[in-house]
């Protein structure tokens, strides 16, 4: 009792003070790279007109972190041209650079800026693309991420994800001074913003398909409740506070429904809530645990965790109901299944010798273990389907990590304060 009163006291202090800067600092390290990364040179942009972020440095870092590029160090560059006409192809050819990016920032009439950049194929002496992106002074970092996305798409054919974000719950302090915080940061760990703080647990952030809203579980009122918060306006709505569990919210791909776990009618079961009308539809009816629903991208199936067979395993069910089909048989613990963006595979927490992130191919039903931690949990795909974000806990230190779906590349997003409790990559 006393403990809770002190919690309340600390909440009051925080309320009076309004700390904004995110306490959890993220940094990203490549822990293992891939072979055959493309050489590229991002020449420092001419940006005398703009004293904000160093755009070329951010683009370079982004491309390097993808594991598919090896950007040239600035000191190795044979020249640093700014206008397109000044590029000396021969100089770049002799230093082994096929891909060269130059750019500059100019002020525009609207009081903002424009970033212009050009990508050259130095071997063939041709221009591969040229773009101009208007931006406001404070948008330098996001503009650089967008440039990285465009270059990445041009050279790999795949969607870039540098301009996406990660939502995660961090917890700092112990006992009386415990503080939970839902934050959103760029995938390079920068520009972290706090969505909500609480002295009571926050769990299971879930992005709406358009990336504009986030659903989460909060215990701020004592029992659990599910909220939907609009990220631009900050307005939020309590959408479920039934007796018992209100947990594991998951948006349908069209954004109209929220699948969730409720235990108001007995044991935990999966329900579908129509977000607009608030009508609730019960999907499973069993005396066992049914939880952690996640939609297939086509909206025709959900995967969920159930211990109806004695141990937690994954099952598939139609949103219209019917008999669920058991999906996992390997191992005594398979939980928190999530569909890949192409719908062809499911990532999960796979228990046995520790808890690791595993990937099941839905065609062959083969299971492949991707992570190597002792306690890895909370898997979620990057929007391009190439990475699985997860939380690894080893000897008490938590890390937000990402592993490529082939298991070959891992990135660590280091949260420097407290522990990470749940995470989700934006669409």
């Amino acid at each position: 009792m006393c403990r809770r009163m002190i919690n309340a006291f600390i909440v009051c202090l925080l309320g009076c003070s309004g700390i904004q800067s995110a306490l959890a600092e993220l940094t990203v390290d490549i822990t293992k790279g891939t072979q055959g990364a493309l050489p590229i040179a991002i020449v420092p942009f001419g940006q005398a007109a703009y004293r904000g972020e160093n755009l070329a440095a951010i683009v370079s870092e982004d491309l390097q972190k993808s594991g598919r590029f090896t950007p040239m160090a600035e000191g190795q560059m044979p020249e640093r041209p700014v206008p397109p006409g000044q590029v000396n192809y021969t100089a770049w050819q002799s230093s082994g650079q096929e891909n060269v990016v130059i750019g500059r920032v100019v002020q525009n009439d609207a009081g903002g800026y424009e970033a212009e950049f050009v990508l050259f194929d130095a071997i063939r002496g041709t221009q591969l693309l040229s773009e101009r992106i208007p931006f406001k002074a404070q948008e330098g970092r996001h503009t650089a991420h967008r440039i990285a996305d465009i270059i990445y798409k041009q050279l790999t054919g795949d969607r870039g994800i540098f301009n996406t974000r990660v939502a995660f719950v961090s917890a700092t302090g112990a006992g009386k001074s415990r503080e939970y915080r839902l934050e959103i940061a760029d995938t390079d760990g920068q520009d972290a913003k706090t969505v909500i703080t609480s002295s009571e647990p926050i769990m299971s952030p879930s992005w709406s398909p358009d990336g504009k809203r986030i659903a989460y579980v909060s215990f701020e009122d004592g029992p659990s409740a599910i909220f939907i918060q609009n990220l631009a306006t900050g307005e939020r709505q309590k959408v479920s506070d039934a007796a018992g569990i209100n947990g594991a919210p998951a948006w349908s791909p069209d954004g109209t429904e929220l699948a969730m776990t409720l235990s108001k009618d007995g044991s935990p079961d999966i329900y579908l809530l129509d977000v607009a009308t608030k009508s609730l539809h019960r999907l499973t009816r069993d005396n066992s645990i049914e939880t952690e629903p996640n939609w297939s991208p086509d909206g025709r199936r959900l995967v969920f965790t159930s211990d109806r067979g004695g141990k937690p395993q994954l099952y598939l069910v139609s949103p219209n109901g019917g008999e669920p089909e058991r999906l996992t048989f390997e191992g005594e613990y398979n939980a928190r299944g999530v569909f890949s963006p192409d719908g062809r595979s499911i990532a999960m927490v796979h228990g046995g010798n520790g808890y690791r992130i595993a990937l099941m191919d839905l065609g062959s039903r083969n299971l492949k273990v991707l992570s190597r931690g002792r306690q890895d949990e909370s898997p979620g795909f990057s929007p391009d389907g190439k990475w699985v974000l997860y939380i690894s806990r080893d000897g008490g230190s938590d890390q937000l990590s990402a592993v490529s779906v082939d298991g070959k590349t891992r990135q660590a997003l280091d949260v420097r304060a407290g522990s990470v409790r749940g995470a989700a990559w934006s669409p």
Partner: protein
Amino acid sequence: MKLIKSLLTLLVLSLVLNGCSSKGGVTEEEGEGANDAYGSGRKSGAKVGKYGRGGAGGGRGGYGSGGAGLGGELDDPSSPLAKRVIYFMYNSDEVMPEYKSVISTHANYLAAHPDQTATLEGHADERGSSEYNIALSEQRAKSVARMMNLQGVSDSQVQVVSFGEEKPSVSGHDESAWQQNRRVEISYPGH
């Protein structure tokens, strides 16, 4: 790295305790005071930050407020009622035989005091999936509630709440810590 973490934690704590001020044109509003679940009348436990405004608020009555005029025994540390934690095996919601007497003691007390309410808080160790652990810890608390019901405790006397792995009793990361964290805590409002 550990040192940095400790320093940051200290920094965070000092910021919190000093109620530090901030910069950056962000609105943070206190939620409407949710009626406290635990009877202490605290404010709502959350603030909507950075991206947020608008109150938390709208809390429900919560866990009951009975207990006035009762409970001398509840405050006696030498009473058998002082034993209030039931521990569980890994991934199990089955009450082990050695804890049946603890539950019986509380069930008898509640059955004899129909105006007294109790909260059963279910918890899990940190391993596995967090939402599955919420479900598992509710099953644990419900196992205890069922045994109490069989001994004459009415449904309205007992509130079940589950925190999964979110509120560990001890912060270690080994079997001895996990054992202590797989638990149901019986609590009486005001005692």
